[in-house]
């Protein structure tokens, strides 16, 4: 049973560029949440998708956007990259209930 899978594992982008990160939830899960984890910090909630709609959003600018597809997979898009966007981006899936949050191993984004 595959867990949460994220791609790519590593990514290097230049300031001002755009990036798309992808996530496939654990089998049976229908809700996807995205978190940003800066070095030495805990994950910070970006947003959550359920039934192809953004349900909750954290304190992130509109440069961060997402999408959920009918098969429950999800994308995180970041426009106009800043150096401060360098971080580990984590995807977590669940079956609606909060307590069953399963994380992927993340995509490490480096902005130069």
């Amino acid at each position: 049973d595959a867990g949460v899978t994220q791609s790519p594992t590593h990514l290097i982008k230049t300031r001002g560029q755009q990036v798309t990160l992808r996530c496939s939830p654990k089998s049976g899960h229908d809700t996807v949440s995205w978190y940003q984890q800066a070095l030495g910090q805990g994950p910070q909630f970006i947003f959550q998708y359920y039934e192809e709609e953004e349900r909750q959003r954290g304190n992130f600018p509109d440069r961060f956007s997402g999408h959920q597809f009918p098969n429950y997979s999800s994308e995180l898009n970041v426009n106009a990259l800043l150096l401060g966007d360098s971080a580990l981006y984590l995807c977590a899936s669940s079956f609606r209930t909060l307590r069953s949050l399963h994380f992927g191993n993340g995509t490490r984004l480096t902005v130069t």
Partner: protein
Amino acid sequence: QKEVEQDPGPLSVPEGAIVSLNCTYSNSAFQYFMWYRQYSRKGPELLMYTYSSGNKEDGRFTAQVDKSSKYISLFIRDSQPSDSATYLCAMSATRPDSWGKLQFGAGTQVVVTP
């Protein structure tokens, strides 16, 4: 002031010792409390989940929540070198606008030496 405070460590203990971790928080609306373990270059893995106040035990792990003091703890008994990781506390409120949104501490790095 951050909503969730957690000492970043590192916390170094000898094998077999009890590891004691804790977090404090300021938001009295938090009702769900979790502990995650994160190995280097991996995603967080849920260890313990507690709703409201009280204690919960699972094998070598014990989680405690004291809502009156806004203080949560995780104890690891008979620690092993494989327990070396970063431990993250996380919590959430039950209000509809908090649904699915976890607030994490910064994580405490634990090193268990053989």
